[in-house]
């Protein structure tokens, strides 16, 4: 049995800030036949849950929330009539730019593309990747997962919170959960400097008197069914635990904000070479990977600090893909 096949000039994998911006710029460069494939039920990607303000100063000259920033691009997609498929997951991408996709309406099908723009974004480093010792109770979330629960689903993941890692999402969640009535006890980071932006340390921690403990990490997790507490330990200059500095802190929730990893499983399958430093594809100045006609932009390329920079980079990839397919 042969699979149903869709043909398109430009396949854009991911409908977050990178994919949306790439699609808009490809259209503006003359491309018309394209398709955005998004695995979630709406466009917008991570911007949907980033309800805080602070986006768009560079790109639009005004301070916007994440959903407002996404709204600008989604409105453009609708205005231009750029096609997109939601609830659809690409499971494989081949070097010849044929993708296998799946959704509940069409089952498994193929998309044959003239050019592909990789815009899958990144994922958070999880507890497993951090190798924290101890039991495996509930109540341990990556900061972005907690953000999704609170901002999109309307659930509070817990009441007594410890945050490991001072990445921006963790800082933003410290404020968010405090505003919703949780007690955020502290944020700690193994490094001697915070990894999030100074403005977020100021407005998310200092504003609410939440202590930031640097050169300090979680060495053990306690609790049977639900998290009961964590052991904190100071670390020295070589990031090794300082014996005798252990301190038990009770909490029912631990948020992890310990870095982001570009999501490149599909890229690897397509023969794209990944840079070991950025975790993203090696590209030329047009953001073309080593596989001709496959481009990469946004957080799948390297983790960006600002969504404005993602959009600016995605514009280049969109234009280059349009040029590649002869639009």
């Amino acid at each position, binding site marked *: 049995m042969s699979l149903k096949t869709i043909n398109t000039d430009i396949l854009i994998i991911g409908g977050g800030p990178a994919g949306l911006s790439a699609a808009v710029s490809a259209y503006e460069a003359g491309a018309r036949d394209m398709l955005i494939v998004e695995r979630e039920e709406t466009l917008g990607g991570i911007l949907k849950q980033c*309800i805080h*303000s602070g986006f768009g100063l560079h790109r639009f000259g005004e301070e916007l929330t994440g*959903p407002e920033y996404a*709204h600008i691009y989604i409105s453009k997609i609708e205005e231009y009539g750029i096609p997109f498929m939601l609830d659809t997951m690409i499971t494989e991408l081949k070097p010849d730019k044929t993708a296998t996709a799946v959704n509940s309406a069409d089952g498994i099908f193929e998309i044959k593309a003239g050019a592909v723009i990789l815009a899958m974004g990144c994922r958070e480093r999880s507890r497993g990747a951090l190798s924290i010792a101890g039991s495996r109770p509930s109540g341990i979330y990556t900061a972005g997962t907690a953000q999704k629960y609170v901002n*999109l*689903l309307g659930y509070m993941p817990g009441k007594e919170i410890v945050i490991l890692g001072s990445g921006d999402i963790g800082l933003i969640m410290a404020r968010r959960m405090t505003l919703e009535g949780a007690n955020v006890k502290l944020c700690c980071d193994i490094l001697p400097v915070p990894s999030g*932006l100074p*403005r977020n340390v*100021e*407005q998310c921690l200092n504003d609410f008197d939440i202590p930031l403990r640097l050169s300090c990490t979680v060495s053990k997790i306690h609790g049977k069914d639900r998290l009961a507490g964590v052991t904190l330990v100071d670390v020295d200059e070589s990031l090794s635990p300082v014996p005798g500095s252990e301190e038990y802190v009770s909490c029912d929730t631990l948020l992890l904000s310990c870095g982001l990893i570009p999501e490149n499983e599909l890229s690897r399958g397509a023969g794209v070479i990944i840079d070991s430093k950025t975790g993203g594809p090696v590209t030329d100045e047009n953001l073309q990977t080593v596989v001709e006609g496959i481009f990469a932009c946004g957080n799948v390329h390297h983790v960006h600090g600002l969504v404005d920079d993602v959009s600016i980079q995605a514009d280049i990839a969109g234009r280059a893909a349009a040029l590649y397919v002869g639009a």
Partner: protein
Amino acid sequence: MEERKMTCIMCPRGCLMTAKIENGEMLSLEGNTCKRGYEYAYNEIHHPVRTLTTTVRTEGGRIAAVKSSVPVPKKLQFEIMKQINALRPSDDIVFGQTLIQNVCSTGSDIIVTSD
């Protein structure tokens, strides 16, 4: 005269600024690289304000993002949160719609920011 150090929150650059203050008045500012920084420092000393962003639950249980249309006094954030959390707007609220006018007499409206 006292000196107060602060990190500007107006943009991702996060300038470290030093204000000279006398009798609660800002006399001078160093370290800012734009006028937004000056505005932030002035407000921070005289009447600190923040843009408040949160969510509301509609009658039917949909979660929508909202924000204060202009920054609100920092000390009123929890009071405004209470008012927003007490709202149960209808399910058909749309992007840009005002849910509370002049919340807590701050001059700021609470508006819907998600589609």
